[in-house]
């Protein structure tokens, strides 16, 4: 992150009805950072999946808790941190079943994490169970997005 860094934060109650607000929040920042429309949609998806996991799994759908979203961008990347104080989990233990296995088991578990890993460039977890869980994700800006095109 360089000296042009900008930081935005959103704290919302842990209810799925706030997912739309969270998506809008990160989309606006992605646009301001100069991301392409396609990359803004990927950013929205990753944040939606991460926050839905927090609401459903870390907080067990208790809508009275808080989800914190911190977005920082500079000329090279958009970084998103999602913080909660619920039950942590070990992301390495989430099974990566293929789609046929999930369908046979009538399950959809792990699809969200798979989407996050597919659309973001970096994904890191810091889990302190019951105290603080933090997911950090980075989407790098493509050169054409961060620099104006040279004139002919």
């Amino acid at each position: 992150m360089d000296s042009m860094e900008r930081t935005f934060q959103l704290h919302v109650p842990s209810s799925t009805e706030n997912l739309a607000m969270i998506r809008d929040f990160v989309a606006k920042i992605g646009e301001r950072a100069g991301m392409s429309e396609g990359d803004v949609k990927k950013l929205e998806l990753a944040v939606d999946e991460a926050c839905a996991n927090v609401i459903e799994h870390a907080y067990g759908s208790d809508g009275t808790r808080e989800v914190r979203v911190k977005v920082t961008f500079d000329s090279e990347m958009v970084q998103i941190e999602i913080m909660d104080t619920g039950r942590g989990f070990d992301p390495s233990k989430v099974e990566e079943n293929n789609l046929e296995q999930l369908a046979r088991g009538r399950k959809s578990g792990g699809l969200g994490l798979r989407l996050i890993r597919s659309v973001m460039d970096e994904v890191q977890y810091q889990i302190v169970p019951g105290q603080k869980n933090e997911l950090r994700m980075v989407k790098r800006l493509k050169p054409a997005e961060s620099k104006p095109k040279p004139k002919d």
Partner: protein
Amino acid sequence: MANSFSVGRSREGDISVLTLQGYLDAHTAPQFEKVIQEEYEAGRLRIIVNCAGLTYISSAGLGVFMSFIEDVRAAQGDIKICSVTETVYQVFEILGFPSLFDILPDQAAAVQRFAEAPVREG
């Protein structure tokens, strides 16, 4: 704000057509699940999900397709998907949906697909 969602229902012969509109996420997926559940319980197992108006889908929405497809196929039915926008198709593709579901360009093609292959071998 980008959170409206609706499911329209119609019939085309013996096929149930569910038309999705708006944003399908963890908040709205239960609405979609309820409608598919009702179709399944009523024995209407030839289902087309028309996604022309679907602006957004997350894994919660994809999970609804996943949780019914085996049961529907076991009962000799199928869920076929049509008219998917590029953005939504990208999400389907990341998770490998095209290998598990028949995804057709439009509703007429989906109806035709039911005539050719009522049940897809998953």
